C-alpha cells in the first residue's frame, strides 16, 4: 500500500501499534475484571461473577472519609490551579514581556522534576514555618504540580484568540471587565472547563505529594496505599480502584471533547476572519 507521500505503510507497523496499545491498556483493564471476580485472590481462571466487593465499599467509613477528602482537595486544587493558570496563560499569549521564557520555564518545571524532590522540599518549608500538615497543605502542593498541565491546556485554548474582537468591544465602550466577561470568556470557556477537569483528575490520582503532606487526613490514593499491606483487603481496593479509573476516564474524555470543540471554534473564527 502506498501512502500519500510515497511513504509506504508496512504491514507490521499497525500490528506493533495494536500490541503496544494492548500493553498500555492491560493493567487498567485487569483491575475491573478482578473487581467482579468471586475470589479474594487475583488468579486465573476466574471464579465467578460478584458485585459484593463494590457493596462492601458503602459500609466502609474510612474509605468514605478519604473519598470526601479527595473531593475537597480536588475541587480546591482545580479551581486554584486553573485560576492561576488563566492569569499566566493570558499574560503569555496576550503580551510580550522580558523574562517571559524564564517565567514559563519555572511554571513548567514540575514536569521535569522528580516528584519526590518537590514533595520533600514542600514538606521542609511547611514544617519549617510551623504549619500543621492538613488537607490545606496537600492543596497548596498539588496546585504547583497541576499548574504545568492547566497552563498548557489554557495556552493552547487562548493562543488562537482573535484580539480584534476584544478591541472592538473596548472601542464600543465596554469596560475591560465587561469585555472579559462578555467577549473573552464565552470563547475560552471550553478551555477553562477542560483545565478544571484535567486538574481535578490529576489531583484525584496524585499520590506522592498527598502522602507527604496530608498528615492524618488521607486522600483516596493515600488510603489505598495503607490498604495494600493487607492481602485480604485487595478485592475491596480493586473495586475502589476500578471506580476511580472509570471516573478518571470519564472526566478526561469530557475534557478532551471540550478542548477539541474550543480548538474547532478558534479555527472557524480564524477562517471567517481571514
Amino acid at each position: 500500500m502506498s501512502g500519500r507521500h510515497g511513504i509506504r505503510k508496512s504491514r507490521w507497523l499497525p500490528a506493533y501499534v495494536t500490541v503496544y496499545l494492548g500493553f498500555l491498556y492491560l493493567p487498567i483493564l485487569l483491575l475491573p475484571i478482578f473487581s467482579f471476580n468471586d475470589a479474594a485472590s487475583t488468579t486465573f481462571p476466574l471464579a465467578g461473577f460478584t458485585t459484593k466487593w463494590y457493596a462492601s465499599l458503602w459500609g466502609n467509613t474510612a474509605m468514605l472519609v478519604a473519598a470526601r477528602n479527595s473531593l475537597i482537595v480536588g475541587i480546591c486544587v482545580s479551581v486554584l490551579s486553573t485560576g492561576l493558570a488563566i492569569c499566566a496563560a493570558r499574560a503569555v499569549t496576550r503580551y510580550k514581556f522580558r523574562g517571559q521564557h524564564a517565567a514559563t520555564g519555572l511554571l513548567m518545571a514540575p514536569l521535569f522534576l522528580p516528584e519526590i524532590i518537590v514533595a520533600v522540599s514542600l514538606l521542609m518549608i511547611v514544617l519549617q514555618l510551623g504549619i500543621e500538615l492538613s488537607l490545606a497543605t496537600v492543596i497548596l502542593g498539588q496546585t504547583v504540580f497541576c499548574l504545568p498541565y492547566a497552563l498548557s491546556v489554557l495556552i493552547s485554548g487562548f493562543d488562537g484568540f482573535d484580539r480584534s474582537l476584544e478591541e472592538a468591544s473596548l472601542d464600543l465602550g465596554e469596560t475591560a471587565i465587561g469585555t472579559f466577561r462578555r467577549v473573552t470568556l464565552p470563547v475560552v470557556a471550553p478551555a477553562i472547563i477542560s483545565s478544571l477537569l484535567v486538574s481535578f483528575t490529576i489531583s484525584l490520582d496524585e499520590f506522592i505529594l498527598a502522602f507527604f503532606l496530608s498528615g492524618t487526613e488521607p486522600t483516596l490514593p493515600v488510603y489505598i496505599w495503607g490498604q495494600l499491606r493487607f492481602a485480604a483487603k485487595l478485592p475491596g481496593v480493586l473495586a475502589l480502584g476500578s471506580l476511580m479509573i472509570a471516573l478518571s476516564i470519564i472526566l478526561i474524555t469530557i475534557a478532551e471533547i471540550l478542548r477539541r470543540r474550543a480548538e474547532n471554534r478558534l479555527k472557524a473564527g480564524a477562517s471567517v476572519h481571514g
Partner: protein
Amino acid sequence: MVALPGSIETENRRSVAGRRRWTSSDEAKGLTLISPTLLYALALLFLPVLIVIAYSFWSQDYLTIDRSFTLENYRIALTEPIYRDLLWRSLTISLAVSVITVVFSYPVAWFISFHGGVHKNLWLFLITVPCWTSYLLRVMSWKVILGYQGVLNTGLMSTGLIDKPVASLLYNSNAVIITLVHSWAAFAILPIYVSLEKIDRSLIEAAHDLGDNKLWSFLRVTLPLSLPGVISAFLIVMIPTVGDYVTPKLVGGKDGVMIATAIQAQFGKGANWPLGAALSVTTMVIVSAMAGCMVLALKLFVRRIK
C-alpha cells in the same frame, strides 16, 4: 538649583510620563497579569528548592540543625556504599527506562503522524488515556500481573505453557523497568509526535527519489529532524523516573530499591533532613549531567550519520 526650576519640572514631568507609558505598556500589563502565578510558583517551588539546597550544607545535631557550612552530607551521599549503590541503581534504571521508552514509542509516534489520517486526534487520545488514570493503581495492577500467584503465572499455567509459576517476574529491577516504561509511554510519544508533525513530507519523498532506501532516508532525514522531540522525550522520562518512589516500593522488592526510598527515610524514621536534602541535590545534579551527556551523544550521533 533655584535658577533651574523649570528644567527640573520638565524632568519630573518627563519621568512621570515615562512611568505612565511603562505602566500602560505590554510589558507591565503582562508582568502584572502573570505575577500572582509567578509568586505562587516562587513561594512553593523555587523557594523550597533553595531551602533544600541550603539544608544540604547544614548538619543534624540530634534534634536541632547546626547551620555551619559542611560538605559532610555530600561525602556520605557519594561514598557510603548503601547510598552509592542506590544512586547507581536509580541512574541505571532511569537510563534503561528512558532508552526503552523512547525506542518503543518512536514507531507509535511515527505511525500516528504518518498513517494516522483523519483520526490523529483519536489515536493520541487513546494513547494518553491510560496515563490519566491513577499511577498508584497502575503500579498495583502490575504487581497483580507479575506476582507469583499473579495473572501472568496463573494464566500461563492454565494454558499449559508452564507447569510451575515463574518466581523471577516480580520484586527485581526488571519489574521496576517494565512498570516505569508503561507509566511514561505517553510522555515519550507526545513530544516525538509533535516533532514528526513538523517535518516537511517532501523532504522524505526527495530522499526516496534520490535513491535512499528506507533505513537511510530514516536515519539521514527523519531522525535528525525529529531529534528535538526525541530529546524532550528523553528528558521528560529520565529525570522524573530517577526519583520514583511508588514503583520500587511496590514491585521492586529488595533488589529494586531506588534512591527515593532512602530520601524518604531521612524525612521519616531516619530524621536527618540535611542528609535527605544532600541526597536529593546529588540525585538531581547527577541525573541532569547524565541527561546532558545523553543529549550531546544523540546530537553527535545524528551529525556523524548525516
